[in-house]
């Protein structure tokens, strides 16, 4: 049986995206963005765009998560709205 892996991953992408904008904790948002990027990376890999997947994994899931955490570190952790 052929697993529709891209559909499963796409569902996770949408879940992560919605969760990232609705969570009040900014640190949690940063981590959810990292998860979102990693799922996108899997999607690129499934579609055969390995170079893009590599960039997404290193830039999106790696460094930008660290930048977000660094930015949260110098502001308050909970969002006001």
């Amino acid at each position, binding site marked *: 049986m052929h697993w529709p892996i891209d559909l499963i991953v796409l569902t996770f992408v949408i879940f992560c995206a919605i969760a990232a904008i609705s969570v009040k904790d900014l640190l949690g948002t940063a981590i959810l963005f990292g998860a979102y990027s990693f799922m996108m990376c899997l999607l690129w890999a499934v*579609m055969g765009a*390995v*170079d893009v*997947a*590599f*960039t997404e994994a*290193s*830039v999106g899931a*790696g*460094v930008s998560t*660290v*930048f977000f*955490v*660094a*930015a949260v*570190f*110098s502001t308050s952790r909970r969002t006001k709205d």
Partner: protein
Amino acid sequence: MKLLGFIIVCLTGTLLLYGTGEFPDWGDPNSPASIHLSNYYIEKAVEQTQVPNLVTAVLADYRGFDTMFETAVIFCAGLACFLLLRDFREKKERFYRHVPTGVILHVKSGKKVLKTGKEFEHMDKDWVPSDLIIKTVCRILIPFIQIYAMYVVAHGDFSPGGGFQGGVIFGSSLILLAISYDLKTLLKRVKEKVLGIYAALGVLIYVGIAAICMPMGGNFLDYAALAPLVWDPHHVRALGMLGVEIGVGIAVTAVMAIIYINIVSEGRHDEGL
């Protein structure tokens, strides 16, 4: 106001979804991009550039101009981060820790500077006791991450990867050092001035390789003109691409470190994560 925003978001989303409906199917051989361009690259790229990874061939050779300005954009991002956040004012208050006893000194006068070394060490306001396990694991990991980053840059012609990815991985190894020890340890090893120079140097390597082609009798970014300079004229385009990828890698590494240091210490370059 919130309702208005919600309606606008919904409208834009619907329009975007409506627009994507017109896209050609994924992997459709009759889509405009697959009819002219892809065929040309797939048939000619290996023969013209001797680079098996078509993505690298397209990015660094056929569309070299595009990648050159992307590197310049990365450099500008680092520059903007530096100009916006960097704060050169000396901090007035300092905290020191007497290492043998663990007593913490709070020095309020800006002029009194204790010499740090075996007896006293600098302390941040969010200082936590250093964790031996984290430090040791990171110390062992960092050299391997850096070697992998160099492999990604050097092997970009043959496998996925290239200057951007390798540079980001190398930059994150520097960030890992700052996280596992502290920011001062990183700044002691990599000076701010060195980072700035490397960021500019990376762009200069790219533009330099592109510009050297002109006095050699070719066009800007036409690596084939460099054939008399290299030891292997048959692979001159692959070597030219390797050169520009190294430039991109250096610039991206330095810019990642600059952005991280400036964000995490709010431009003070003294304490942070």
